[in-house]
């Protein structure tokens, strides 16, 4: 499902070029669940950017969903991205679209028929408790509500790989629990899940395999 072999990532250009990830090697099998831990600046977000193909490895080999990224053509990447759901730390919602349209966007990009999009998007927004805010713009929502929209958008296309960067950061305890139950349910249905977090209490409550990063290097994989 996910395999990294000596993967590194440099950001910036020329003199400002900096290595943010160094020689990462680990596997996440299909249907696996991983916590990604590490202090701020350890490289968690950079690793998630690699895994959602927002950045490509500078060195090493990355295999995602059976595709070797180094040898993939540019045109191979969009279909791959559609099978990866991402919950960003800063939500990354489109401010000019309504809540419904934000959640429907991945399905529209995938070319799904509007009737099916409507059923899936409305059902999921109901599940995250935003049935009454379908027409609202992101700016009209609280941080927690925006995060729930971002979560709904990430999972609406039923991704094979789900990446989440601090998904419970803006949620109250009840919402965080609901989100964790959703992630577990998706995982139980076969979705591979990788969650970056600082929330150690949540990690203890939902024990799973853990990857710990420190200064761009993997220091624990158990």
């Amino acid at each position: 499902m996910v395999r990294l072999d000596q993967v590194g990532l440099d950001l910036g250009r020329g003199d400002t070029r900096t290595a943010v990830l160094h020689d990462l090697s680990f596997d996440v099998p299909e249907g696996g669940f991983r916590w990604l831990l590490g202090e701020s600046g350890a490289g968690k977000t950079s690793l998630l950017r690699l895994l959602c193909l927002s950045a490509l490895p500078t060195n090493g080999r990355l295999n995602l969903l059976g595709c070797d990224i180094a040898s993939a053509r540019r045109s191979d990447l969009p279909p791959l991205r559609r099978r990866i759901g991402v919950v960003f730390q800063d939500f990354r919602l489109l401010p000019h679209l309504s809540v419904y349209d934000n959640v429907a966007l991945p399905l529209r990009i995938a070319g799904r028929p509007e009737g099916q999009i409507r059923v899936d998007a409305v059902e999921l927004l109901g599940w995250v408790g935003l049935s009454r805010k379908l027409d609202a713009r992101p700016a009209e929502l609280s941080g927690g509500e925006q995060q729930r929209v971002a979560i709904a958008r990430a999972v609406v296309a039923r991704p094979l790989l789900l990446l989440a960067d601090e998904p419970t950061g803006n949620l109250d305890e009840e919402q965080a629990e609901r989100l964790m139950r959703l992630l577990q349910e998706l995982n139980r249905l076969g979705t591979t899940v990788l969650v970056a977090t600082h929330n150690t209490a949540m990690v203890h409550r939902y024990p799973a395999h853990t990857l710990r990063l420190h200064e761009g290097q993997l220091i624990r994989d158990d």
Partner: protein
Amino acid sequence: MTRSLLRPPGFDDLGVRRALSDRLLPCLVAAMAFLAALALAGAVGATALAQHWQSGAGGMITVQVPQPGDSIGSTTRLDRVRAALTATAGIAGTRTLSDDQLRVLLRPWLGTTTGDISIPLPAVIDVQVAGAGPDRATLVAALETAAPGTLVEEHDRWVKRLATLARSLQACAALAFAVVAFVAVAVIAVATRAGLASRRDAIEIVHGLGATDQFIARSFAQRATVLAGIGAGIGAVAALPVLASLAGLAAPFGNAAAPDGIAGAVGSIPLTLWLSVLCLPPLAAAIGWLTAHRTVRRWLRRLP
């Protein structure tokens, strides 16, 4: 709720309508289309004038016979020249200008009081040539023999010069049209780049959700197509009064009467020019599509 969930046609996922303003770009394209219409008018006018000159003066020879009434033997010099022309191969017909017609020709130089001019006037014969026409050297020799001092003037030489001038005008018009098209491409490319910069975040999000380059480029290209088409339509309509006015001014050169009123002026615009101007909006729309599409695809190469 149902109303808001139906995706309207042309739904703007990327917010491109904000990125490509419906004011500046159409105005600039309208100005380009206006200039393009003038360039087209120049090209069409030059072609029409060249054809007019070709059909009017091409294939004509003018023969001047000094002292036409003087006799050589039993016949006048004029009759001898006419007989020589009739006997020459490659001549379809001749027409001797009357004194009144000569006075009309001389009026620009001698004024209207040419009724009693004292200087001797030559006879002037318009000769219509057939096919390739007579051999010039043979004709000159035959007329010199018939009436010494007879002058032969071929219009072909002038027509060729005028045709060269017309071709030069056409080339200038084509060059002006090409420059206008190039500027239109540059304007659309710059507007598209500005739009891309302003929607960068949205594009990166949509790209990250798995949108293809084609999906993103199509959004911008559709918007640029509409704006360029509308702008060119406005420019073409704005150019029509100018074209009608120019066509009215040029009408006498084509032996047509000056048009009366607005309807007459519009009606005097040649069909070719009408069709050319009508093609401007779809042409601008095509330029808009291709330029925006290409610009976006090139910009997207910076994303993984």
